């Protein structure tokens, strides 16, 4: 019950009036960010991160700063459902499955029920994930205290191999995108040897590429360019939520308890794996369709078809923070940006955080409970307001978003060069998105590049260059082995199916 005590202390931190205010500000900002095209959780947090630099220097300020930023993340997750249901525009990839049944419901005039169902199941998914984080993260962190450089590098390897093997896209493109991230992270002064790498005499490259600039450009500018192709007008269904609709939907929801629990479990499990939120939402939609007695009506506007993906996506989005706070490995691009924030504030994410900064960790975990409650209250009461934002014409909102991106890029280091870089990253993001190069591995590699390299170096330094150090004991060996299995998962799967087929033929 040590966790409960620690959590109660965390609530003490999170419940200060200032932190509560930040929570509501964060959630509202997050929903706006989630609703707006071109702004999502990752680049929304990236743009606002520089504003927390001064806040984080005050005593207890890092906790306030992470509460603000993580609440922006929760808000963005909620906001994604609004655009999916009312406008059929998935704000984030994991909201795609929500459009399948959410938008038909809205077209049939049941937008209120669809939104209530989405928000409530998001809240439920997040709650399950936070409870899991509360009890599991101290265990994982305690376990990870035994990690040395080889183990940490293996965990990174596992993260990146999971991307290649599990993403289901073109593996070569995933590897290319990831390695570009690693290469960009290596640019600049090498802190170990003091050598300049990949700068080619340009002084602006000395400090390397900041991942925040990459995130703002790739996701912000890139997405605006992509949206432009689809035309300028958003056509949305009207949004009206009143207490009656909310209560009616809430009465209906307990019927889908099995779907909710299954989706939450899928979400929690997949969220720990990087890039897990999107597959989790699709998977639980598919499972709900299969197990539901009116599965054939899915896609025509079933509340259950909204419950499944929303629960899973929010559970996954939340549990993506578990590996971030315990191992220093983010499970999603937004978690990667939050991790980058910790590094900038001078905190070392990883198992030691639980020992050295319990206030921070438990304040964050407590704020996850409170932030999601705040989020649910705000979305249920203010949906029409947020939907109105999307009715602002694109020709006004688009330049304003680009101006915000430019300000965000500039404030990271007060450098104009970063603003130019942002535009370049925007064009790269547009081309990569259209050619289906995944962007998340690049961002993760940019954030983790230095730490991965450092652990790799220390590991092979200890073994005098022998790569077998990554198999030197049971722990690191199984981590590396698991990484390799995940990397070759598509191949293994194909081989396994082939063997099964041959076996069944022989049996027949």
């Amino acid at each position, binding site marked *: 019950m040590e966790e409960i005590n620690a959590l109660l202390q965390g609530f003490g931190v999170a419940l200060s009036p200032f932190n509560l205010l930040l929570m509501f500000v964060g959630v509202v900002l997050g929903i706006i960010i989630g609703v707006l095209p071109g702004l999502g959780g990752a680049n929304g947090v990236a743009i606002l991160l520089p504003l927390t630099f001064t806040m984080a220097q005050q005593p207890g300020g890092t906790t306030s700063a992470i509460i603000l930023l993580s609440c922006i993340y929760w808000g963005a997750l909620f906001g994604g459902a609004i655009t999916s249901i009312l406008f059929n525009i998935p704000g984030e990839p994991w909201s795609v499955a929500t459009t399948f049944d959410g938008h038909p419901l809205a077209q049939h005039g049941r937008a209120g029920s669809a939104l209530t169902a989405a928000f409530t199941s998001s809240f439920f998914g997040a709650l399950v994930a936070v409870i899991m984080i509360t009890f599991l993260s101290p265990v994982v962190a305690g376990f990870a205290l035994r990690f040395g450089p080889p183990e940490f590098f293996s965990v990174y390897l596992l993260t990146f191999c999971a991307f290649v093997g599990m993403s289901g896209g073109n593996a070569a*493109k995933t590897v290319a995108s990831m390695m*570009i991230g690693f*290469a960009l992270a290596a640019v600049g002064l*090498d802190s170990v040897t003091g050598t300049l790498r990949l700068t080619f005499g340009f002084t602006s490259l000395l400090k390397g590429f900041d991942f925040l600039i990459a995130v703002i450009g790739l996701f912000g500018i890139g997405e605006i360019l992509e949206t432009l192709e689809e035309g300028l007008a958003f056509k949305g269904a009207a949004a009206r939520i009143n207490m009656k609709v909310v209560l009616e939907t809430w009465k209906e929801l307990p019927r889908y308890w099995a779907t909710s629990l299954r989706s939450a479990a899928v979400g929690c499990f997949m969220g720990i794996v990087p890039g897990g939120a999107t597959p989790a939402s699709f998977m639980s939609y598919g499972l709900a369709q299969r197990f539901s007695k009116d599965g054939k009506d899915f896609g025509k506007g079933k509340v259950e078809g909204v419950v499944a993906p929303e629960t899973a996506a929010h559970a996954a989005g939340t549990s993506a923070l578990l590996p971030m706070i315990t191992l220093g490995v983010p499970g999603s691009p937004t978690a990667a940006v939050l991790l980058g924030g910790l590094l900038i504030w001078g905190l070392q994410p990883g198992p030691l955080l639980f020992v050295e900064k319990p206030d921070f960790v438990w304040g964050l975990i407590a704020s996850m409970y409170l932030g999601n409650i705040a989020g649910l209250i705000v979305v249920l009461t203010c949906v029409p307001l947020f939907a109105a934002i999307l009715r602002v014409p694109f020709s*006004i909102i688009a330049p304003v978003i680009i101006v915000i991106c430019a300000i965000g890029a500039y404030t990271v280091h007060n450098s104009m060069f970063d603003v130019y870089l942002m535009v370049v990253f925007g064009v790269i993001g547009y081309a990569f998105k259209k050619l289906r190069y995944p962007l998340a591995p690049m961002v993760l590699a940019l954030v983790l590049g230095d730490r991965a390299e450092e652990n790799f170096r220390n590991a092979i330094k200890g073994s005098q260059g022998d790569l077998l150090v990554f198999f030197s004991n049971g722990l690191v060996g199984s981590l590396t082995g698991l990484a390799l299995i995940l990397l070759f998962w598509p191949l293994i799967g194909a081989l396994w199916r082939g063997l099964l087929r041959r076996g069944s033929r022989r049996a027949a």
Partner: protein
Amino acid sequence: MSASSGATGMENEKQQSAASVRAVEIGVAAVVLLFGAIVVFDSYRVGARWGDDGPQAGYFPFYVGLLICLSSAAVLVRALRNTALAAESFVSREALKMILTVLVPTVVYVALIAFLGFYVASTIYIAYFMWRLGKYAWVKIAPIAIGVSVVFFLIFEIWFAVPLPKGPLEAALGLN
């Protein structure tokens, strides 16, 4: 667009592809391959072997670059062999035109910031965007474009005390 072409002709022209998926795929893969080669080359230059006291600075990036080369080469070869991709449109002419009408002003905007400061450049940029894409009247454009910049000024300079680059206008108004 020629004046003689009818509505359907114009429609066709709008839908016409500006570049095939295959061409862009090959182009992007080639650029990535070149980037990988640069990484490999520079890592080799700073030393990618085992030094006296551990791996040299280029050890890790060398293999990263190598993997970039290998993976982009795989994408490149696949695109070269897949001629069906040539028929697929990467971007239609109309969409490309749309993107350029946004991208070019954005590049000009970012370049202008250095001379005019953030606020004036942003006002001009928003105004241009509304005029060019939204076809608004100037009586609507002026208050919105100026208003947004004033709000940003209040938020960043006064509330958050984060100074953004300023230009001659702010200097004249004594706001520096």
